[in-house]
């Protein structure tokens, strides 16, 4: 059974059709990329899966069970974490506190035991710290651990956002343009982290990304969207030779010269 199954989804905003009859499924342990021109509906698809918007028709299943009746806050406990295209961190908090929020669904201490900060609450806090520290270690965020988000450079924020999603220990992580705005060096780091997230943490990855270099390097399968429709689905090599993809996404109308 597929881990995540999107069936015949249609979404409209006002008069504009954002997604039309989109279907695909993601297998456990896969790195699944979604590419396409701007405004093709990629982010809408993410917002649908993380339940920030409602479909007009269609079905989204996680492990065979529909998630359409769930609210955004439920998705974390179902094991779906995400990052945002525009980076949406808790600006006034430190990196550490941001990652700790990622542990929110794993909290156990009761209201009262938090208020008196019982030994159990303390033990739990320390356990959360350890988990977060593993993420910090994984993403090499030591240098900015105690810094507030507001003063961090763009590249670091991008990594912190991935870290916040990983701190949740999710089953699937949705990465919305993880490498956009990163320098060549940073985006290479991101590329390795993405493959490590799967290899070392065993997390399935669904990502939207424009950088075809990165997409071909890490992903198993690629879904190409244009104007809300699926125009191709296959391995990176397959979709990159698809004529419609060449035209709509890469802007190449004839066979590439080389």
């Amino acid at each position, binding site marked *: 059974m597929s881990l995540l199954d999107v069936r015949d989804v249609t979404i409209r905003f006002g008069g504009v059709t954002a997604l039309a009859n989109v279907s695909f499924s993601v297998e456990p342990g896969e790195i699944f990329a979604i590419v396409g021109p701007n405004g093709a509906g990629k*982010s809408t698809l*993410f*917002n649908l899966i993380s339940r*920030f918007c409602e479909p007009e028709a269609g079905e989204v299943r996680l492990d065979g069970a529909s998630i359409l009746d769930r609210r955004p806050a439920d998705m974390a406990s179902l094991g779906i974490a995400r990052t*945002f*295209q*525009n980076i*949406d961190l808790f600006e006034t908090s430190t990196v550490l506190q941001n990652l700790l929020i990622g542990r929110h669904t794993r909290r156990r201490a009761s209201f009262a035991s938090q208020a008196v900060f019982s030994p159990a609450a303390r033990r739990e806090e320390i356990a959360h710290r350890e988990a977060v520290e593993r993420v910090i270690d994984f993403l090499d965020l030591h240098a900015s651990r105690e810094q507030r988000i507001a003063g961090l450079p763009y590249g670091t924020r991008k990594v912190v956002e991935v870290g916040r999603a990983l701190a949740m220990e999710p089953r699937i992580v949705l990465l*919305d343009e993880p490498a956009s705005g990163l320098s060549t060096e940073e985006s290479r780091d991101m590329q390795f982290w993405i493959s490590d997230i799967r290899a070392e943490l065993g997390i399935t990855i669904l990502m939207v990304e424009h950088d075809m270099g990165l997409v071909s390097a890490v992903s198993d399968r690629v879904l190409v969207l244009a104007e809300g429709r699926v125009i191709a689905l296959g391995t990176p090599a397959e979709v990159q030779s698809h004529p419609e993809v060449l035209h709509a996404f890469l802007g190449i109308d004839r066979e590439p010269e080389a």
Partner: protein
Amino acid sequence: MEDLQLMVGGLANGCVYGLIALGFVLIYKATEQVNFAQGDMMMLGAFIAIGLGNESHGGLPFWLACVGAVVIMAAFGMAMERTLLRPLFGQSQIAVVILTIAFGFVLRFIAGAIWGHDPLVMDHPIAGTHVTFGPVVLSADEIAVIAVTVLLTGLLYLFFSRTKLGIAMQAASQNQLAAYYMGIPVKRIHGLTWMLAGATAAAAGILFAAKGSVDPSAGLLGIKAFAAAVIGGFGSLPGALLGGLIIGLVEPFAARYVAAGYAQIAPYAVLILVLIFRPHGLFAQVSGKKL
């Protein structure tokens, strides 16, 4: 027929609320600041008109006194922006809220020190004249209030939606940084906005004074007008007028059909109801964030 009469009175009252609310919305739409002193500015405008025009005070001709009050309040609004708001440029909304609340206290004190705490009545040429429409008797000041309010709302609405300056004002409130990048002089626009708000407050004050008496605590009417602006959907000019009218109508009818004590609380009950069912008011100006 009594209901109809109540309605007309309520509408006229509602127009004054609407005009004060218009001032709130004006400032919010153009600067994203919330001016809690708008009611007190209205009160000040009323006193200035009385101070200039009444026989016992300045003794100027009525129309001159009105124009004078509008001009003085416009200058006052601009001065307020320059001295109080500009230092807070870029600070959070809440700082401005607190500042204007506190400044309202100061204005009430100043007005009390100058004009005293006893209610004053404005002399005006149409005082006491009536027009009869069948069974309904309209006083001329009520008609004037309604006409001026509708006219002002319409003009401001056109100003914001049609003129380049109006659109620039909206742009400046939505994204100050981007407005600067486009060469919009954000600070000057803030000054202009407060000037407009001052003038609107003066107009509201004159109309308020035309209908009854004024004392320094009249500024507290601002809170009710605030409720009106929120009911209408903060940021919408026609909404402000509509909200004002709703509150103006709810008050007399609650007093008549529920109990006298309830006239005070009815507007707030309506406000809370509206907010529960339409969290951003009747003409919502809030939209979803792009993820």
